[in-house]
Structure formats: structure tokens, C-alpha cells
């Protein structure tokens, strides 16, 4: 199908493959379409189509609930064309510019699922073709017979990788994660599209960092930390980080975080936060050599890094409430929005 994206700034034509979403087709051609989650949640990619020219693969997507059908509103990340079509992209994005990114379709095999904390596992994706990605980016993965793709950030970093690794939390009712956990250790073949995402970091930016992450939202930050460690980035730059979960037993990656902390103790401060205060005696003062605080990530961050926020790059990852609290903290501290990076998956 031929798809034309247009707005007041111009128009661009792309060829959309069978079963491919409008967003994927556009991104594959380097069209700088607006998006964040790529998976029907955040509604960043709302656009407009003419009646009957597109259909949604997942009409019940959370991000589709506020669409106005009378205006032809649709989610680029969920809709596929049923005929050649024109898509009106709102805003001032210059569609004829090239994004410089070119995510692609391929297949991969999920292997080495390993439970590392209650309802949290790591897994590896054996890709048919190697990919190049930026630290902090994610891939869209789809199991056979699933309505749509789900976004998962790489925890590993390599300039060219055929075996990226991920961390996943088993979400009750979440088809992807429940299938994975129920079929424990059974390799599954998945559709893959990517790399995606703008919450990236390049050591060439030469910035001090503050990171606020919750649960499996640490994934993209781990990729950034691993790249930074491997390039000895923190010998010249500072990192302050808060990693939060509900209970002490929910933590994971702590040995590696401690190693990162100990690699340049003068420049790196990693704190842990536990939000469940139902048993006040069960929280130790530290875990794996890292200090634990009681409270939500943004509350602990306000306590331990308030003076470190200004002038730094803020990297966030986690569930919506954690992101909102952390955003509030950063904005209140005067951090400009262009210095705050996150992808909104929830």
C-alpha cells in the first residue's frame, strides 16, 4: 500500500508492507513521525486518516480510548492501511527531514529466560540479523497471535549486536510477559521491529547524569551504565542514581550496580529505594553494599540528590506514577525539559 504522510510542512510517500503499521512504515523510511511507546499506550502518535482507509490491529489499546473517530483520529502505531491512503500528522514536525534512524523488521528467538527476582526475569533475543542501536533504545516484540507489539528496552550494549538482553516483569494480564513466564524457558520465536526510542545517551555528550528508575524500568539505564562503564565515562563525569522497588527482595542487578559504584566511588552514588512500608523492620540499612532508603524513587531522590539535579542530564525509567513523581522533582529543580529523557511505556 502507498501511504502519504502530510501536514502543513510538507508530504512524504512510503510503501507500507502487508501487516505493517503506519508508524513502522514511516520510521523504516526515516520519516520523523512523533511517537514514544510504539505500542498503543502513550497516544503520542495520534494522527488522522480518511474514513475507511485504515484499520486498527488493537482497537482496545489504552492510547486509543480518547480518539475522536469523527475526526478520523487513529494511532499510527496500531493502524495498518486497507487501501492507499493519506495520513495527516499534527504538529510542526518536518516530515521531509530524515530522522537518521532506520528501524527494520526481522525475527528472533527468545532464549535463556532466567528469573532473577520475584516475577522478574532476564532473557536474550537471538536475532536473525545483527542490529545497531543506541544505549537506552528498545525493540518492539510480538509473539505469534498477539494483537500488537510490546516495547522492551535492551539492558545490554554493543555497537552491533545479534544477542541483545532484556529484563521483563510478569504483569498480571499482560499477554507477552504471562506467556513467557507460563512457558518458562521454552524458546519462543517473535516478530521484531527496531531499534526504537529517544531516551538515549551518548558518552560524547559529556554530561553528568542523574538516573531515577523503578523496577524493570531500569532496563534502558542498564544499557547506558554498561556502555559508560566500558568507556570509562565516569572517571570524568558524575552519576547519581536511585533504583526503587517495592520490597528488598524485589531488587536485582545489585552486584553489577555495586561494581559500577566501586569502579569510581568518588563520582558515582547509587542509592536503593523501597516503597512498601508495611514491615518497617524488614528493610536493612544497605544491600550488596548500596544504601537503602524507604520511600518512592522521587522521594528518595529528593533526599539524596537534590543538590545534584541542576545542570545534569536526567534519565528516567519506570511505571507512570514513578515517572510523574520524578518529572515533578526535576522540573521543580529547574531542569529544562530538553535535559530530561524517558520513554513512556505505561
Amino acid at each position, binding site marked *: 500500500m502507498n501511504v502519504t504522510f502530510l501536514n502543513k510542512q510538507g508530504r512524504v510517500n512510503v510503501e507500507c508492507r502487508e501487516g505493517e503499521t503506519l508508524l513502522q512504515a514511516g520510521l523504516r523510511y526515516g520519516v520523523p513521525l512523533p511517537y514514544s511507546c510504539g505500542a498503543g499506550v502513550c497516544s503520542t502518535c495520534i494522527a488522522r486518516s480518511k474514513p475507511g482507509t485504515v484499520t486498527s490491529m488493537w482497537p482496545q489499546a489504552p492510547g486509543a480510548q480518547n480518539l475522536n473517530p469523527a*475526526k478520523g483520529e487513529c494511532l499510527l502505531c496500531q493502524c495498518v492501511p486497507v487501501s492507499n491512503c493519506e495520513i495527516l500528522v499534527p504538529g510542526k514536525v518536518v516530515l521531509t527531514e530524515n530522522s537518521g534512524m532506520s528501524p527494520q523488521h526481522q525475527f528472533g528467538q527468545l532464549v535463556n529466560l532466567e528469573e532473577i527476582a520475584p516475577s522478574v526475569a532476564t532473557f536474550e533475543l537471538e536475532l536473525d540479523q545483527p542490529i545497531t542501536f543506541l544505549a537506552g533504545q528498545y525493540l518492539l516484540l510480538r509473539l505469534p497471535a498477539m494483537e500488537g507489539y510490546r516495547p522492551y528496552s535492551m539492558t545490554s550494549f554493543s555497537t552491533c549486536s545479534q544477542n541483545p538482553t532484556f529484563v521483563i516483569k510478569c504483569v498480571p494480564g499482560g499477554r507477552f510477559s504471562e506467556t513467557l513466564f507460563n512457558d518458562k524457558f521454552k524458546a519462543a520465536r517473535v516478530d521484531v521491529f527496531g531499534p526504537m526510542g529517544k531516551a538515549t545517551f551518548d558518552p560524547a555528550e559529556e554530561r553528568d547524569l542523574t538516573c531515577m528508575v523503578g523496577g524493570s524500568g531500569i532496563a534502558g539505564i542498564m544499557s547506558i551504565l554498561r556502555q559508560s562503564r566500558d568507556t570509562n565515562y565516569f572517571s570524568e563525569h558524575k552519576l547519581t542514581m536511585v533504583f526503587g522497588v517495592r520490597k528488598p527482595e524485589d531488587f536485582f542487578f545489585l552486584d553489577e550496580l555495586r561494581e559500577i559504584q566501586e569502579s569510581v566511588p568518588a563520582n558515582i552514588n547509587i542509592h536503593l529505594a523501597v516503597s512498601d512500608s508495611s514491615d518497617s523492620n524488614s528493610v536493612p540499612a544497605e544491600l550488596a553494599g548500596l544504601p537503602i532508603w524507604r520511600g518512592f524513587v522521587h522521594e528518595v531522590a529528593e533526599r539524596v540528590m537534590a543538590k545534584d539535579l541542576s545542570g545534569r542530564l536526567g534519565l528516567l525509567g519506570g511505571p507512570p506514577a514513578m515517572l510523574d513523581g520524578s518529572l515533578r522533582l526535576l*522540573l*521543580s529543580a529547574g531542569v529544562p525539559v530538553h535535559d530530561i529523557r524517558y520513554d513512556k511505556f505505561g
Partner: protein
Amino acid sequence: MSESNEDDWYPLCSIDDLAEGTLKKFEINDIALVAVRIGDEHRAFPPFCPHMSEPLHESGICAGAVLTCSKHLWQWNLLTGEQQGPAEKALLMYETSVRQAQVWVRIEKELVYDYQEEDEEDDFEW
């Protein structure tokens, strides 16, 4: 206060009801609005983000005189309504005033954003 029709002015709340930098939603004659205090100033505006109509009393974050919608980080100067950073539309504002420790708001008509302005696209007819 302007020379507007006195009938257009409505008492909103006591000045003590508005906490610094905290968005509070009100409804007057079936018209919803959000109000906030910035220092000694008070502002009232429609409860929806001009971008994608997010409920600003939930998604809005105030830091000083800057309002940010956490959905897509659109920002405005709360004192003037002018857009900042990535925002592409200004915040519409109701006129406010303080009389005897009460915040008043002038509602001549409900302020609504034109989310359909893209219809003006010359070669995109519906």
C-alpha cells in the same frame, strides 16, 4: 478589574484555597476550569492541555511560573499563557481578580481549544 459586564464575574474560591503551584479544578455554571496561585498572582484556564486535551489538573506540573503537561512536556508561562519549549499552542486564560480575599474569575463564554485547526490543510479535505 476590566470594564466588562459585571454579570460575567463569578466568585471562585478564597485566596487561601489555592496553594502555591498546585492546580485545582473548579466548575462554574457547568464550565470546568483549573486555577492556580503563583506568588500573589492567580490564574484560571481551561482544564485541558491544548495539545491532546489531557486533564491538566492531573497531568500538569507547576514549577515557579512554568506549567508543564507531563504527557508530552508541553510548557507554558503561567503568568502570560505563552507557550515555551516544545509547546505549539498558547494556554487560553480566563481573567481573574481578587476582591476581599476572594478570587474571582471572568467567564464571558467557555474557552475551548481548536483541536481541529489542522482541517485548514489546503489539500486535505474531509
